[in-house]
């Protein structure tokens, strides 16, 4: 992906030329590379539009980051045990998370983050003791929250993590902002989760899906006219013990990694949030991922 670079300006954006007569505005958000792709046009305009997208990504990141002390998430964690009123956007996300929790029978759970305390997927064979996991399970379960929009009581010891939907949500948010002020083709790509409004003049958007364990080598080249794609992957994070590969996708009900999950699942849907949830739910089915996707009748690509 050669091309001329403008160099990173003080606004954190880099404008690059891409093949197929495209311009890319690149920035970093949510710990990964993000970009806005546009048919080649004025660079200043591209930068301006990229700014809208980046600011929205940074806003969502800042608000729901697990790593920032000034995030809404940190604020919620600091008020554990108390009854708090959350803002409208957070309330909508919590409602959405509850719907996903219930419809997946507890497999998709934004309170499962505490389990990470027991698992470190560093490629080693250090499997946690079952007792440690047993001890954490009482702190997992969306149904243990007292959530009646807009009031939330997060019990002591529990954690919320919007990581499972934050990036996809940010793509959709940024998409809406851009769609309101631009009718010409664009594609928003936040680290592989992407959404396009319409095909570019050159025909279709070509999207490469990386093979999770090979460094940045696109093995799957997809063509997209419009709509969203999201990928859930087992990536490079795993443990290996006694010939069993423990991927990083945890079943919140058992506290153990899902067995037989594919390396990556890519799903096409109308919104990135929807695509992301479907791919995550497919991963959580483990070896049943493909059957699940076929059952749901969505376009999907699975790397085993």
């Amino acid at each position: 992906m050669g091309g001329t670079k403008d160099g990173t300006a003080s606004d954190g954006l880099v404008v690059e030329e891409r093949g197929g007569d495209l311009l890319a505005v690149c920035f970093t958000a949510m710990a990964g590379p993000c970009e806005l792709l546009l048919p080649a046009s004025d660079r200043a305009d591209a930068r301006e539009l990229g700014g809208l997208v980046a600011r929205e990504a940074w806003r969502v990141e800042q608000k729901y980051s697990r790593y920032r002390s000034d995030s809404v998430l940190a604020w919620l964690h600091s008020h554990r045990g108390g009854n708090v009123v959350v803002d409208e956007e957070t309330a909508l996300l919590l409602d959405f998370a509850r719907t996903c929790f219930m419809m997946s029978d507890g497999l998709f759970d934004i309170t499962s983050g505490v389990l990470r305390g027991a698992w470190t997927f560093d490629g080693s064979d250090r499997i946690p003791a079952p007792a440690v996991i047993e001890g954490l399970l009482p702190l997992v379960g969306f149904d243990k929250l007292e959530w009646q929009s807009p009031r939330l009581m997060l019990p002591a010891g529990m954690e919320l993590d919007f990581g499972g939907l934050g990036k996809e949500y940010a793509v959709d948010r940024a998409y809406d902002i851009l769609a309101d002020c631009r009718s010409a083709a664009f594609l928003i790509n936040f680290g592989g989760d992407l959404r396009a409004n319409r095909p570019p003049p050159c025909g279709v958007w070509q999207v490469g899906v990386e093979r999770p364990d090979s460094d940045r080598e696109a093995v799957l080249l997809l063509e997209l006219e419009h709509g969203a794609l999201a990928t859930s992957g087992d990536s490079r994070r795993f443990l290996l013990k006694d010939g069993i590969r423990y991927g990083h996708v945890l079943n919140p009900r058992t506290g153990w990694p899902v067995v037989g999950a594919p390396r990556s699942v890519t799903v096409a849907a109308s919104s990135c949030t929807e695509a992301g949830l479907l791919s995550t739910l497919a991963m959580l089915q483990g070896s049943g991922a493909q059957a699940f996707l076929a059952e749901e009748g969505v376009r999907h690509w699975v790397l085993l």
Partner: protein
Amino acid sequence: MQLKPETGTVRRRLIAASCTLLTASSARAQEIAKLLADIEKTDWHLDSALAYYHEDGRIMAVEPVVNLSRDYGDGGRIGLNFTFDALSGSSPNGALPSRAPQTFASPSAKSLSTARHTYTTGPGQLPVDPNYSDARVAVGGEWQLPLTRLTRTSVGGKFSYEDDFLSASVDASIEHDFNQKNTTVSVGVSDENDQLHPIGGTPVPGSDYLLFEKTGHKSKNGVGTLLGVTQVMNRHWLAELNLSADRFTGYLNDPYKIISVLDGSGGMTGYLYENRPDARTRRSVYLDNRVGWNRASAALSLRYMTDDWGVRSKTAQLRVRLWLDGKNQYVEPTLRWYRQTAADFYTPWISSLAGQGPAYASSDSRLGAFRALTYGVKYGMKLDERTGRTGSEFSIRAEYYRQTVENAVAAPGALQGLDLYPGLQAFLIQVGFSY
């Protein structure tokens, strides 16, 4: 525990849930986007249009309009507009057709016999002044500035100049958002001052046309108030209700309009200058509904106006915009229906038998009862990609207007069979460009 009770269940529920998530918070996101866009957009925005207006067999007008506006990041906005009108053609002078030729003097004349320009209307024809021409230059400005996060105020002024007419007006309004910016209430006042310098002097209202009783310049004043409520009903529907009232006092006549005086058999015995009351109070209610979907939007507006001259008018307008080619082009058909009752003193002619004439009288068809239909269509093409600026657009609009006189009074004797109420047809073509 399996996730597959039936095909696509999870997906369907997910679509519904993500729809709720994404659309409900989108109003907020839009607000943020607008805020950001405002910060970035400190360039002047240009809106220009050139209109060609043609009244069937009468007036032709060419009107270029230029609007310039600039948004400041803090919600402040400055708008300037320039209009130039060039009208030419023939304008009805208010008299009725007759079986015999009729001769009139151009307005500048001091008497019919010494008039340098006279015009003669043939038998059965509607008398029109064929030398009608006028040029108007108008400039206006508006300055909006935020007072608080939810309150804005705006002041504006307009100045318009014609050879025989000068108008200056100022207005001020204040707007406040309530209910998480879903409701906006605005209150406004305006003041207008007009000076009339009719060519050849101002006729004495109700005086005999042949006596050429003229005085110097005249003026009229108007004050108006407006109360408006705009409500976001939901993501797709915006409603606006306006109540307004205004009162004009002073010389409210059209100085070039006369009325035929007829005897009992329909014979033309002379003409009088029209004579309107020197005050007019109007009240109106206006309701506008705008709905928008992804590929189409529609606006339905209804207006009811009543005044103390006895004119009551109703307007209904429907405009539908259909987006084509993504959102790069649109077609916008318009249908407008209008109906008004006549002013109490409207009369197509005055009877010479009545002895003393009526206190007030005008034969101006704009004060008579009529209904009108306008059919229009507009085509627009977004030029954002070509110009590299959002909001760039080329548009072309065509409208056809047809006015039909209502409650026409039957003509006496000799005038029977003549078309006394020809109505009006007009068409308009406008080409617009925004950048």
